[in-house]
């Protein structure tokens, strides 16, 4: 069963414009949600996790249990934000992780 859905494979925004990367999930129980990022020629790395409620590089994500969403937002996109973004879900045990198919973000100068 598809647990994490990222509906946009590609997303382009202009520098300085707001950006939102969508993520919806399907899971019964209390999952933990993450956003991972992969910059060009770099490894996959954690951007943020919902439990820490941090803002990393200007990005925030709010867990909406009613809509089962965990959209990633940034008010003003920068060129260095261009990357592949993956939404991920961990089951309640932390044993398994499910990743979405990813959204490739391009910030146009």
């Amino acid at each position, binding site marked *: 069963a598809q647990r994490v859905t990222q509906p946009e494979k590609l997303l382009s925004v202009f520098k300085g414009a707001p950006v939102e990367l969508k993520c919806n999930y399907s899971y019964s129980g209390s999952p933990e949600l993450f956003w991972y990022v992969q910059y060009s020629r770099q490894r996959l790395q954690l951007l943020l996790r919902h439990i820490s409620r941090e803002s990393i590089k200007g990005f925030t994500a709010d867990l909406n249990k009613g809509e089962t969403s965990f959209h990633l937002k940034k008010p003003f996109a920068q060129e260095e934000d261009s990357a592949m973004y993956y939404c991920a879900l961990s089951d309640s045990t*932390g044993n398994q*992780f499910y*990743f979405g198919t990813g959204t490739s973000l391009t910030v146009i100068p």
Partner: protein
Amino acid sequence: GAGVSQTPSNKVTEKGKYVELRCDPISGHTALYWYRQSLGQGPEFLIYFQGTGAADDSGLPNDRFFAVRPEGSVSTLKIQRTERGDSAVYLCASSSYRGYEQYFGPGTRLTVT
């Protein structure tokens, strides 16, 4: 210190052959995960180790796939009788504890001809 390393970085093998992929996690990390990433897809969970034991191997696609972590550090993913559909990037990640931030390796690109 060094991050997660994986060897080889690329592996080309013929259909039906046996391959081993190695992962060196960050020192002291007890949790280790293997993923498979096919083109255009996100990482797909294969197996999770806590220490030396496979705590969850429900993601292994079939019995041709096996993984070990005998001393709780280095892990090896073993694939028998490889098939063309096994071609993918195999990722390894480690964390200080299950569910915590995962640190990924660069991956091994496996091509089965």
